[in-house]
Structures are given as C-alpha cells and as structure tokens.
C-alpha cells in the first residue's frame, strides 16, 4: 500500500483533472438544459482546438496564449455551426436521437484530425502551457500553476455559470427552455438566440478543456475525444441538471481515479471509476426518488 505522502501527490493530479472534467461538465449541462442535446462531440471538438493550437505554435509562429485563444474560438465556432445547422432539424426529436447525432460529428472530427495530423511514422505531439514551469511546494508536494488554474477554472466556471443561469435574462431564458421549449417560445423568448448562446458557450469550454487536457494528458485526437466519458459520468450524476452536483462529481471522479493509481491490485480497473461512481449515484438517487414517490402514493 502506498504511504500517505504518496497519496497526497496523487491528490494534486486528481484535483487538476477533476477541475477540467468539472468545467467540461458545466458546458454539457448548460447545453442540455438549453437544447436537450447531450453533446458527445465535446471531447473531439476540444481535441480539434488543441491540435489547431499546436499547429499555430509549431509552424505559424504564434505564441502560446494567442494560439490558446484561437483554440477556444475554434471550439466555439465548430459547436455553434453544428448547433445552428443541425439543432433546428433535431429540435423535436428524442434526446437519445440528438445525442447520437453528435456522435456523427465526433466521427467526422476524428477523421479530419487523423487526416490533418496523422499518427503514422511514430508521430507524437505535445503542447505545453507556460505555467507548467512555475511551481510551488505544499510540504513535499510540488504543485504547478497549471494545476491551480485547472482547478480554479473549474470552480470559477461552475460558480459563474450558476450565477448566470440564476441572475441574467439569458440564463433565465435557458432555464425556461429546459422546462418547455415550445411554451417558452410562445412567451416571446428568442429561442434561436438563446440556443446559439448555449452552443457557442459549450464550444468555448470544449476548446478550453481541450488545450488543458492536451497539456496534462496527451495531445492525441483519440485520447482527448474519449476523455468525455469521465465528464459524461459527472453530468449523469448531476442528472444533467445540477451544475454543482456535476462539479463535485467531476472532482470526486478525478481524485478517486488518481488515488487508485498506486494501488497495484486495482490500478488497472481505475478507468471504470466514472462508470462505477455514476452507477452508484444513480442507484441511490433512483432509490430516493422511488421512496419519495411511494410516500406520495400513500
């Protein structure tokens, strides 16, 4: 068994990844609330943004920060384009159909990325956030500013989005659409503008998460695309509604996943963490809902 000090080191990496899963989860929840779409292309869009940033920094003479902003915008524009083209056509379909349609976008983006940034000949790429080299110590544990930024961004975006949904006109409109899109439209809410804002915002977060995960995990299209699973689990625990439950679920998933690494007997199974936690949470929540319904029935 690893020592407590060893586990503390893994806590930092877990909180960092948890922070990014959290900001990703917030984007997915907001989009689902506004449009009813579970955006499974989130990871692929993020990967595209990260690879564009890599391209700009390695062969176009861009500095990291301008390329970072371009990557975020790429995420926003691609997602907005998908939402504006396919969103209206799918608006009245079952949520499962809408989610599956985003898998189509995922596959297209994966193909495009494989074409533009092939992995043949042993090609491997990396992107480095400048704050990786700025570190400080907490006891024996080394922490980079990227770690802090990742967790801080997750927390800030969860907080700001919560406030946005609660206190702004656009946010209120998004919440209203979550309840009933048609009635909301008849009340004069500009549905198209509201959904566009949700698509664009979600895409911006995808681009942001893509670059951070490209730095912290791997700048690889397939890897980044499928990291959406951890985020997806967090959003499911939040039942695609609660931003704060999604936030905390993402943090727990990141931390548990990391802390299981040094425990050899379970280390190879830690990738199941998101699914196991989601299954447990849904089981407990459904049980509570069942009890609640039962009481009402009595």
């Amino acid at each position, binding site marked *: 068994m690893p020592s407590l000090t060893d586990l503390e080191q893994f806590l930092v990496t877990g909180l*960092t990844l948890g922070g990014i899963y959290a900001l990703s989860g917030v984007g997915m929840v907001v989009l689902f609330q506004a449009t009813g779409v*579970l955006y499974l292309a989130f990871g692929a869009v993020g990967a595209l943004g990260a690879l564009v940033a890599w391209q700009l920094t390695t062969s176009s003479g861009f500095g990291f920060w301008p390329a970072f902003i371009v990557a975020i915008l790429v995420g926003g524009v691609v997602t907005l384009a998908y939402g504006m083209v396919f969103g209206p056509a799918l608006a009245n379909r079952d949520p499962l159909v809408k989610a599956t349609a985003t898998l189509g976008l995922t596959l297209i983006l994966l193909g495009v990325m494989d074409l533009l940034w092939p992995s*043949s000949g042993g090609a491997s790429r990396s992107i480095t956030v400048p704050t990786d080299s700025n570190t400080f110590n907490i006891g024996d544990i080394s922490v980079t500013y990227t770690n802090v930024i990742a967790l801080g961004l997750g927390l800030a975006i969860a907080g700001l989005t919560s406030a946005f949904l609660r206190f702004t006109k656009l946010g209120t409109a998004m919440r209203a659409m979550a309840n009933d899109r048609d009635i909301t439209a008849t009340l004069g809410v500009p549905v198209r503008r509201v959904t566009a804002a949700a698509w664009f915002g979600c895409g911006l977060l995808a681009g942001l998460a893509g670059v951070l995960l490209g730095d912290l*995990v791997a700048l690889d299209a*397939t890897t980044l695309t499928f990291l959406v699973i951890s985020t997806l689990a967090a959003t499911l625990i939040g039942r695609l509604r609660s931003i704060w439950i999604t936030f905390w679920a993402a943090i727990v998933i990141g931390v548990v996943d990391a802390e299981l690494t040094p425990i050899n007997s379970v280390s190879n199974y830690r*990738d199941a963490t998101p699914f196991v936690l989601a299954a447990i949470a849904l089981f407990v929540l459904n049980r509570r809902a069942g009890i609640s319904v039962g009481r009402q029935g009595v």
Partner: protein
Amino acid sequence: MFQHVPRVRLVLVLTALAGAIVLAGCGSSKSSTGTTTSSSSSSGSSSSTSTASTNTSSCGPKPGQPATGTPINVGTIDTKQPGTDFSDGPNMINAYFACVNANGGVNGHPLKLYVEYDQTQPAQIAAAAKQLIQTDHVVAIDGVFDLLECTIDQSYWKSLGIYEMDAGIAPECWSTPNSSAVNMGPRYSSDGAVQYGLSQKPSKIVFVQSNVPGTGYIAAGPAALAKAASVPITELTENVPISDASSVALNLVDDAGSNGWVVLNFTPPEALVILQAAQKLGVEDRVKGWGCSTPCDTDFLAKALGPKWNHKLFVNAEATNADDHNGPEMQEYKAILAKYGSAVAGGVGSFSQFGFLLAKFFVQAVDTINPKDGYTIKTVNAAIKGIKDYKSEMLCQPWVYGNYSMHIPNNADFTVTPDNGKMITAQGCFYVSSNDPQIAQYRKLAGQAPITNPPTS
C-alpha cells in the same frame, strides 16, 4: 419537451453505454502468460527529410528502362486506424518497387503490391488474406506491418506454402515457421531496453507497458533478464489511451525508487505523455534512469521532450540511426524515399527503413529465380525461404529466413538517446541476451549470426 421520462431513459441508456465502453476498455491486470497479440507499435524512428542525391537507377538491372512484362503480384496486410497507422511501411515498399519497375523490374517483370488495410478485426484480416490470394493472385506476402496479422493468418500461409516477410507486432511473427521479421518486435526490443538498464547497475527495474492482450508474452523476456541479473523487477500495465499521465509517472517513480530504472513499452504518443508528465512534476531525476523499447526511437519524441531528457532516456533501436549513418545503402534508401516516397508521411524513420529492407530483400530473393521456372507461389516462396546472410547497413546482423520452427533473425541492437531534438547512438550493436529463453532457443536453431555493422562508422 424535456419530460421526465425521456430524460430518465436517456440517462439510463447512456449509463449503460458508458459502462459498456469502460468495461470494454478494461483489460486484464498484470503479468500473465503469452496469449495472442502484443502492445505498441513495431517501430518508429527518426528524423528529418532527406537531401540525398544518389542515383536511384541502381535499384534495377536496366537503368532507365521501365519493366513491361507481366506483373509479379505481391500482397501485404497492414494496420491503419486512428492512433495506429502503419501505412508508411507499405508505402515505402511501393516506393522501392516503383524504383525497380522504372529500371528494368525483375527480369522485365514489374512488381505490383496489393495492400489491404485493417482495423485490428480478426475476421477482416482473415478475409484480406483470402482476397489477396484468391482475387489478387499474389504469389508472396511481403511487408506486413500489422498488430494481429501474424496471429490470424499463420495457418493459412502454412497451408499454401507461403513464407511471409514482415515487421510485426504479434508473437507469431517470431515464433512460427512461416514468418520472419526484419524488426525485433516488442518483446526483444523491451529485452534490449531492460538489458541496457541492467548494465547501469540499478537496484530495481520497473517495466510498464500498455494493457492489451499479449503483455504476458512480452513481459516474460524482461523478467528473465532481470532474474538472471538478480535485480528485482516490477511489471506493470497501463490502460491506453492513458488518461492520467501524471499519476502514472508518479507511480513509476515511486515504485522504482532513487536507484531504480524505469522501462516503458508504449507507442510514441503514450510514452511521450508519461515522460512529459514526469518532467512537469519534476520527478524525472528521482530515478537512476529511464529506458524505452523501439517505438520511442523517433525524433518526434526527442523534439517534443526537449533537452531536459538529453542522455537521460535510453531507447532500444532496431535499425541504424539514419541521422548518424550515411553509407551507400542509406543514401540509396534516402534517394528512393525522396524520388518515389511522397506517400511516406513519416519520411526518414524506422518504419520506412524496414519497408525499404523488406522490399530490397524480396527483390534480391526473386532475382535468384530462374525466369524459365516462372514466378509462382512455389518458386517465389522457395526463394524467400532460401534468403541467407543478406547484409544491410541498417541492421546489426545479416538477415536470414531459413527452414526454422521460429525466426528471430534481428537479435542484436543499438541503444540511442535524445540529444537536442534528435536521437543519437548511445551504444553500438550488442546481442540481446540469451537469458531470454526465446532468444536462446532461436540461437540454438539458427546459430548466433555475427555482428557485421559497426554502429557509428
């Protein structure tokens, strides 16, 4: 619109979907005995584009005269899927064949390569083999760069009397009578990397590879070497793609300890994320050293790692470093690549080097056939099986096929290390240790071929 029922249904379906994906991605745990396939890419190496100006007409018997006879059909099956694209291998073979065809061909016959790509589906690979034989009428299988092919098609080739030439991954590429590889593959390359680590007298080896079927077969080699050296070894596997590289890097360093040696057996992108994570965490110096099997032998990796890893990471290399070495054969390879190899995306590197060798050895072999006997499965494969002592600047030893129950003709290697964005030779040709029982068995059958290639001459 978003009523409760569809939402619940969506949540439940997606939970099941996520679970299925996660469970599908979850393999076995560590160290088991050999099963089917192995991990990581076969090779992967270096470097920059070529400026070679060598005349390419030497690749054929009649310079400048195109071959116009009936084609000799050759087949290959190669993995090409997102994340694992070995198409540089067959593309280089095509480049070499184009050069031969432009300069007289094989006794006037042009060579035609039929390439079947697969996405690691056994049924697809088996069907591809039948397609090549029954529809394309190929007479030989040359240049297989594939994760599974050797496992799937061995019995089929045996039944037809075909002797395939490959740069493989699966154990059967080395352990069966009808396959011979120009590369070493993950097991013997990992042996080489561990062997270098052991020569630095560490107190412990930590060997880690991707968690895919066949890891037990690969891990048996390094385990045997460490045991013979009385050095403890921990063998770990990691699910790929790696989603938490920092945790993995921390775990390896903690496990190895300050006098330990960490050896990776991953594809370049996976190895890179672990090494970079170690660097970002500032733990790369908390072990005595790092090693890696052949896939890390790439300038992409050396560049991405940067100077902090200069002479800190030691990578097993199965072919001569194209940057270090510029003899006549290397110049010919670079010239053919420059003139005919526009489809070789990775340019100079061990994928294309192995493609070059597989094409060159094949042409040398069919050149020995009497044209009156024709170019049939029987005559061509007899020529392939008869390959003996084909020397190359790119390999440490002469290459041989022969009538053996197993084939590990490439069993002496180099070690390279990053040096300001390039891989340079750190150790000349050395024999992979016979403490690996498979190597010992092959040398007993075929003898120990002499090392004929000074590495940095």
